[in-house]
């Protein structure tokens, strides 16, 4: 039978591994060490120790490189977490379909396809990652090196498809259905979603941080572009942008944004700060899609005067949005941060919230819905 809403009661705050207990710290420590070794093992001179060199591990099980090993572990995390998620929340169709697509994209597009291509000696393409998340995608050298059809996808996907879809359906089409980072957050990371900070302070930090990274991502993409065409004539500029030193824009962006913010911190802190640290505070793609969503048709509709202020929505919002504050003031809303995971609507015990892609008709319905005369204040 198809049931909406939360299936049974959760015991999030009774299970110590889900509430910053010892196990949570151990898992976080393990994840952080793993990412540090993965990204910085070479720089830290640890790759000489075979046990700490993931390339060695990868070859031991017949995978071409540490990145394929990482892909395998990632996929195991998404599949395993997906099973956990579906057991907990799979009674509702939105959750079921969404996670199924997420897992399928990870298994097929983000893991199997690149692996097969690598095994056949081809370059690997990750079709489910778009610029500016796949920040280097727009580098002219990169675009020139890939088949024309892939280049068309790379440009069209990022510049046409993504904004159009975000306008029509909200950023959820990417952040909660397709993206690998979102996929991991909503599967492997789901047990910790209530740990996302909801304070006003965290919101202020998010707004500054995520838009800063977005501007840096866009600005540095322009810089790369400029460098590709005019770098010969501007040697100093070329040195800064793509000179090969650790402090060049290209390498610094890779280290700071790609490795530290997305990996070490973004995933490493799942068990302590919730699964969307990266998506919420640092992901340039999320910021850009968020602006498009804000202009678009997606909204969370609030039933008037039905909210009992219980706080389930706010607690389980992985983006730290204070959904309750909108619900208790009868305000339907579109927040640029909202990834449309649907959990606020799912856990609401009074069915107050609904994710919607507005159409003209619904808009009118919405007007009719506003004036519920309980008291004429």
């Amino acid at each position: 039978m198809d049931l909406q809403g939360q299936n049974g009661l959760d015991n999030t705050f009774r299970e110590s591994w889900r509430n910053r207990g010892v196990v949570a710290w151990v898992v976080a420590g393990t994840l952080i060490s793993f990412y540090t070794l993965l990204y910085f093992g070479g720089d830290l001179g640890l790759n000489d120790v075979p046990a700490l060199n993931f390339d060695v591990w990868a070859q031991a099980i017949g995978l071409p490189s540490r990145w394929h090993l990482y892909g395998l572990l990632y996929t195991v995390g998404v599949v395993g977490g997906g099973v956990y998620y579906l057991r907990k929340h799979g009674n509702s169709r939105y959750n079921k379909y969404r996670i199924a697509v997420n897992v399928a994209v990870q298994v097929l597009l983000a893991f199997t396809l690149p692996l097969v291509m690598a095994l056949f000696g081809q370059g690997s393409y990750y079709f489910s990652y778009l610029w500016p998340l796949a920040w280097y995608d727009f580098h002219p050298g990169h675009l020139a090196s890939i088949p024309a059809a892939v280049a068309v996808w790379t440009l069209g996907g990022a510049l046409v498809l993504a904004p159009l879809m975000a306008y029509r359906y909200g950023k959820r089409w990417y952040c909660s259905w397709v993206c690998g980072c979102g996929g991991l957050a909503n599967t492997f990371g789901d047990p910790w979603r209530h740990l996302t900070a909801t304070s006003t302070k965290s919101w202020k930090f998010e707004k500054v941080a995520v838009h800063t990274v977005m501007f840096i991502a866009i600005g540095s993409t322009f810089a790369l572009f400029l460098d590709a065409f005019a770098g010969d004539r501007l040697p100093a500029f070329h040195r800064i942008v793509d000179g090969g030193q650790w402090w060049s824009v290209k390498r610094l962006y890779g280290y700071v944004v790609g490795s530290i913010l997305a990996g070490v911190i973004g995933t490493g802190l799942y068990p302590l700060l919730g699964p969307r640290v990266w998506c919420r505070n640092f992901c340039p793609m999320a910021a850009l899609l968020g602006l498009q969503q804000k202009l678009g048709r997606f909204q969370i509709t609030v039933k008037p005067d039905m909210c009992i202020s219980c706080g389930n929505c706010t607690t389980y919002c992985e983006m730290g949005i204070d959904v309750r504050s909108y619900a208790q003031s009868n305000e339907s809303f579109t927040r640029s941060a909202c990834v449309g995971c649907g959990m606020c609507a799912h856990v609401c015990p009074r069915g107050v919230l609904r994710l919607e892609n507005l159409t003209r008709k619904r808009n009118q319905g919405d007007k009719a819905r506003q004036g519920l005369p309980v008291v004429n204040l």
Partner: protein
Amino acid sequence: MRVVIIGNGVAGMEAALEVRRREPLWDITIISEESDHFFSRTALMWVFSGQLSHQCIEPLERDVYERLSLQRIRARAVGVDVEAKRVLMAGGREPVPFDQLLVACGSKPRPGPWPGSELAGIGNFVTHQDLAWYEAEVHGGPSRGGPPPNADAHLPFSTPDSPYRKRDVAAEARGRRARDVAVIGGGLIGIEAVEVAHAAGLHPRFFIREEWFWPMAIDRAESTWISERMRAHGVQVHLEENVERFEGERSVERIVTDQGSYQADAVVVAIGVVPNTDFLRGEGDMPLTLDRFGGVVVDERLETSVPGIFAAGDCASVRWFNGAVRPEQLWYTARDQGRVAARGLLGDTAQRYARGHWYNSAKLMDIEYTTAGLVNFHVEGERNWFFEEKGPVRSTSRIVLSGDRVVGFNFLGRRWDHAVLIRFIEEHRTLSYVLDHLNEARFDTEFVPPLHIPMEARLRGLSEGPAPSALPQPVAPPAV
């Protein structure tokens, strides 16, 4: 101007916020015995299960009192001296002077009438302290989210008859946590207490005096499904069974009914709530007029029999949508009353409290419930249209008509937008119009297929008279 508010619940807090919005300089003091912070009483069950922490159920950030300079007193009020304009306090605390007063002291659990009710291990599920007791019985203590801050700070300034006193825990005396939990009373608080015991891995017994669960709100056919779900989850549902007494040494050991005797380690009595107004009776004259329910009598501006003193929320006897005057124990009405009372405190004489249409929603185990309008109300020329959907989605829909006019809705299994339902009622729609347009009120989550009503069910579903299994007597709509 000194405004004093007794009660840090939704009514009191809404009033405080509204007064502060208008009057940045007035002195506002909130007296609350139960807790330091305003919290959502409706959410106690999720704190018990561990789904939410205490902080999660606080709708406002904790610094709101400092930010808006709302002063707090964490102690029990034991009376109001109307002449001297002072609130009298327990534990030898100084009386609190006021120019204007709002009484928003909420409800307390209705006590069980049965012998043995004073044994340890018997409690309720209404206050923070009830929650702490129930958690201690079943879980051995609060979740990792911790107890609320300063949980016991009020104890030196309380009285033995307070609903916020600390309870004896049978589990401590017994040396093991409760295994056999019983819940008495088939209403919303009862089913919540059952649900959380089930979530804790127990198989609670649910004693219901009536023929079926929650007869005020749902009819037999609807209720059968709920009972079925409860039983499927391992709840032992005892219908039409009357509790007679509790037995045990110091703690409860058995619960005896007219049909048997059962082991019980912990018993939650959930047979309703009554206005928490005993302290207003105080010693000597009773300045504020209370009605036979114990509710504070108020006029349409929510002013009591004493000018300058207002009452709002669960403790006030207000005019219901059907004209009856009695306390109404609901979150949204308490909130609205808080706002109206605030206008009174601000000296606005035009503001009236006017109750709109009845509506509500709930979740009964894992089944969604929505109602709007006059259901189980025995309206003139009543007819009921009923449809049970089976298939990928299971649901029931009941539409109540008065003559040809649709006047009420009762739904299980799907989510509906009560605002649209109320629009149908206000527009005096016919059954066939409503059935044609029902999906406009759909509020299901995405991808749930719309409700499809086959043509023959549209006709077959209609029966004359009240719902076949509704209560014989007209009843007031259910509060909790």
